[in-house]
């Protein structure tokens, strides 16, 4: 088990470094002028050679790539992440200010996806081909196809239409005003949660069906346990491992989805900051936020792997 943990952590670190190299390559080495990203095509055409050199030097873009990369890594390690082109705010400040909102959305959405997804799967498994099963399967197929940000826009329209209501647009931390905070956080969390729930329900259903066919579950049934108890006691715990793993993979879905969904709701979180940075071509902010998102994704998946390993006696007792 310890060897497994050590290996997972070392590979995780390697992956984070690899990820930083990939994003650095995308930002600096791909055939695209970094100043094109900053100034846009019109601005670039007006630029004189001298101005250009000055800009490049000011931004530290004229140094050798390896120096730029190491400087960036130093900024990351020191926790400042560098500063935005257009704002005085450092990326670290931005993360501290906006991050909690996005983290809340992600957390609520995962909780919601389990609260919705698992019961739906249980209905499908306990009453196969019933009306409930059919509806559940149809909804899970539908929610795999609906873009979350569009659902978000529809929710806003519906709330305005029926209740004349619009969630607050300012960043209110939970501890200051929990009710207003929840009004900001819950709608995007619901949208992202339902999208995930579709995947969770699908996976939990097939995982449960597979486990139910195993001999030890048949034995439990043969002993005379009711179908419900068999599923609850024997099948569910074992069927959950792949669902937990899927939940980790779906973090990618949440992190990625949070950007357009936050834009749809105008939620002042990190996803919205990413949207703005991409449109302002603020490459330092984009570079750092992309790195942050990928690192969070990697770390969460390591934690999930370790959790499932711990839950699985075959790995835990190794």
């Amino acid at each position, binding site marked *: 088990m310890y060897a497994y943990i050590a290996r997972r952590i070392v590979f995780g670190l390697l992956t984070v470094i690899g*990820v930083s*190299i990939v994003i650095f390559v*995308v930002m600096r080495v791909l055939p695209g002028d970094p100043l094109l990203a900053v100034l846009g095509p019109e601005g670039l055409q007006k630029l004189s050679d001298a101005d250009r050199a000055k800009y490049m030097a000011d931004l530290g873009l004229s140094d050798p790539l390896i120096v730029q990369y190491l400087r960036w890594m130093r900024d990351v390690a020191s926790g400042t992440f560098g500063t935005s082109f257009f704002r005085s705010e450092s990326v670290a400040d931005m993360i501290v200010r906006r991050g909690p909102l996005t983290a809340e959305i992600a957390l609520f959405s995962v909780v919601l996806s389990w609260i919705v997804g698992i019961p739906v799967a249980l209905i499908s498994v306990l009453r196969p081909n019933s009306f409930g099963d059919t509806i559940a399967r149809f909804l899970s197929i539908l929610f795999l196809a*609906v*873009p979350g940000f569009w659902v978000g826009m529809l929710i806003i329209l519906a709330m305005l*239409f029926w209740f004349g209501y619009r969630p607050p647009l300012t960043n209110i931390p939970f501890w200051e005003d929990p009710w207003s905070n929840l009004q900001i956080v819950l709608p995007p969390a619901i949208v992202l949660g339902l999208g995930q729930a579709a995947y969770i329900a699908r996976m939990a259903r097939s995982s449960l069906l597979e486990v139910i066919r195993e001999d030890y579950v048949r034995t439990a049934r043969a002993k005379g346990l009711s179908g419900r108890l068999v599923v609850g006691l024997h099948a569910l715990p074992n069927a959950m491992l792949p669902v937990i793993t899927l939940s980790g993979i779906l973090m990618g879905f949440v992190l990625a989805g949070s950007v357009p969904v936050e*834009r749809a709701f105008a939620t002042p979180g990190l996803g919205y900051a*990413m949207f703005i940075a991409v449109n302002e071509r603020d490459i330092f902010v984009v570079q750092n936020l*992309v790195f942050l998102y*990928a690192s969070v994704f990697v770390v969460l998946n390591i934690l999930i792997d370790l959790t499932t390993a711990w839950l699985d006696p075959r790995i835990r007792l190794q």
Partner: protein
Amino acid sequence: MSDATVQQVQDEAVVHHSLLRRMGGGLRTFVRRSPMSAFWGVIAALIIVMAIIAPVLAPYPPLKSDFRAMTKAPTERHWFGTDQIGRDTLSRVIYGSRASLTVAVSAVVLGTTLGAFWGLASGYFGGRFDLVSQRIMEFLQSFPDLILAMAIAMALGAGFGTVIVAIAITRIPFGGRVIRSVVLSLKERAFVEAARGLGASHTRMMLRHILPQCIAPYLVLATTHLGVAIIIEASLGFLGVGIPPPQPTWGNMLADSLNAGLIPPWWLVLFPGGAITLTVLAFNLLGDGIRDALDPRLRGTA
């Protein structure tokens, strides 16, 4: 069932669904076995036809402004209403299918194919090359796909080609990993070993014995990723890093609706989004059907 019988059943499945047969009598079997998938296949085909003959179907040119009707709800003249500069939403939705489908299909074909060949080589040759390839794929897969696509699209500058490249890159690891695992299991099969015993060259073993068996998983992979690619394309458009306006795409139409007033008019939200959902639904369900038909062992998996 003994191993030998299982093997035989699988072999039969493989042969029954060999490409040639599927094109003829297979289509009828497909319709009979899964009428739902066939129905959605027809919808998908209709959407593709719509994209091709868009100029014939669209009642107005997609960029033409009707200054007498700006931000108008659906009427008899404009079934899906108009946007803030009087462009016909129905026409724009019809034309939007072109961008969406072209980008999604090109990106998936490009990315999955590249990944598939990479996975083929990586699985076949193994060793250090495989190790390094695996790590690179893992790095690429460590990005939430839309996030990576956004960064690439921004770095390359918005445009038709860059959106395709951005989405394609996010598809590479999926193609690579699936095909690699197929190749690894094929390498264990005795007939590949037997070909080596005959003196067959690497090229021959790959092209004659391994590649043909990768076609079914490749097709399944490609169709299931079409839906994802369509959603990423729409999201990029919505976030302002997709195909730039004025060319209509479903994503940038939705983004545009946010500029049409404090409250976006419902018809500018409903129709482009509905088009995305319907298209993704059609391709996903068609993909499920193809997967079930080509590879019964994958049935029921997500």
